[in-house]
């Protein structure tokens, strides 16, 4: 029995080589991919949300100890990383625009710079983690946080146990964020490969758009992580 849908499909595929066979037309495919990424980002909001919930509760309970712990992480590195990610979001936006307007060189260049900025972010993060390791601020057997003054309360010293909770959350939250960053780099490497092969056109560049959405989301998580973790109390 002839399958008329198959005949119709081949017709579509001639015009749209990127059309997957279960979609009725390219617009449906684009809309599905876009909605899929947005819905996935919604799940990521809830994923990080659990950590923010834990953080907010303990910060409220142990504000002074958290402030003391926060003061020992390097604000300069954090601020630089924030700027790095903001720059990378700009290059992502440029990449999407380049794909929309068939500017291959700009597309490839933007993708590469985005990845370089991402690597920079991870590099700075690595330096921070190493600093924390050296200072015995990594939770676990060798954790030590003695004689750290509580900001704004002269004479008071931070409770090391509560500081350990801060650092536990610090490492889990920034660690998870860094993991998302690494995955983002993987995605962008794939996008770069596709762009290099010339697979993106003004008609079809959905992967760049949805990859961009993912990257911006990772940026937004950092926009919240930075003040919450690094800037609790920076009064001189």
């Amino acid at each position, binding site marked *: 029995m002839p399958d008329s849908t198959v005949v119709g499909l081949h017709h579509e595929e001639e015009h749209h080589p990127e059309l997957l066979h279960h979609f009725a037309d390219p617009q449906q495919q684009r*809309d599905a991919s*876009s*909605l899929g990424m*947005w*819905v996935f*980002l*919604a799940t990521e*909001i*809830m994923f990080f*949300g*659990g950590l*923010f*919930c834990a953080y*907010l*509760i303990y910060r*409220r*309970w142990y504000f002074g100890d958290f402030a003391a712990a926060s003061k020992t992480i390097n*604000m300069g590195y954090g*601020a630089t990383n*924030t*700027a790095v990610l*903001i*720059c990378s*979001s*700009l290059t*992502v*936006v*440029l990449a999407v*625009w380049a794909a929309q307007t068939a500017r291959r060189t700009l597309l490839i260049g933007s993708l590469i710079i985005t990845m370089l900025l991402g690597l920079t972010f991870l590099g700075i993060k690595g330096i921070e983690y190493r600093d924390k390791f050296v200072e015995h601020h990594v939770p676990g057997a060798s954790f030590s946080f003695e004689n750290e003054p509580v900001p*704004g309360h002269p004479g008071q010293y931070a409770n090391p146990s509560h500081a350990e909770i801060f650092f536990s959350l610090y490492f889990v939250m920034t660690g998870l964020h860094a993991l998302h960053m690494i995955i983002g780099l993987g995605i962008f490497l794939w996008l770069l490969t596709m762009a290099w092969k010339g697979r993106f056109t003004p008609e079809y560049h959905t992967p760049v758009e949805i990859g*961009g*959405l993912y990257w*911006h*989301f990772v*940026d*937004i998580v950092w*926009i*919240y992580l*930075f*003040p*919450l973790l690094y*800037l*609790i*109390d*920076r*009064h*001189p």
Partner: protein
Amino acid sequence: MYFAVFFALLVGTGLTVFAATLDLGRFNAAVALGIATIKATLVALFFMHVWQASEKLTKLVVIGALFFLLLLLGLTMSDYATRPWS
């Protein structure tokens, strides 16, 4: 226009660092979160194109997710904020 948003984001970052050095008491947290929210909103609206999104569904997904996040944070806090003994 992207550059305007980019510039605003960098200014916001500088602002939040500066604000952290001021003693605003309880408002330090509010200011920091406020600036962060403005930055996040700028990224979402303009970099992620939510502002010009052709469909209401996109905005619904974003708002919906934020709603449930606030539910998680808010209702959990309602326990911690009303414990008379802690």
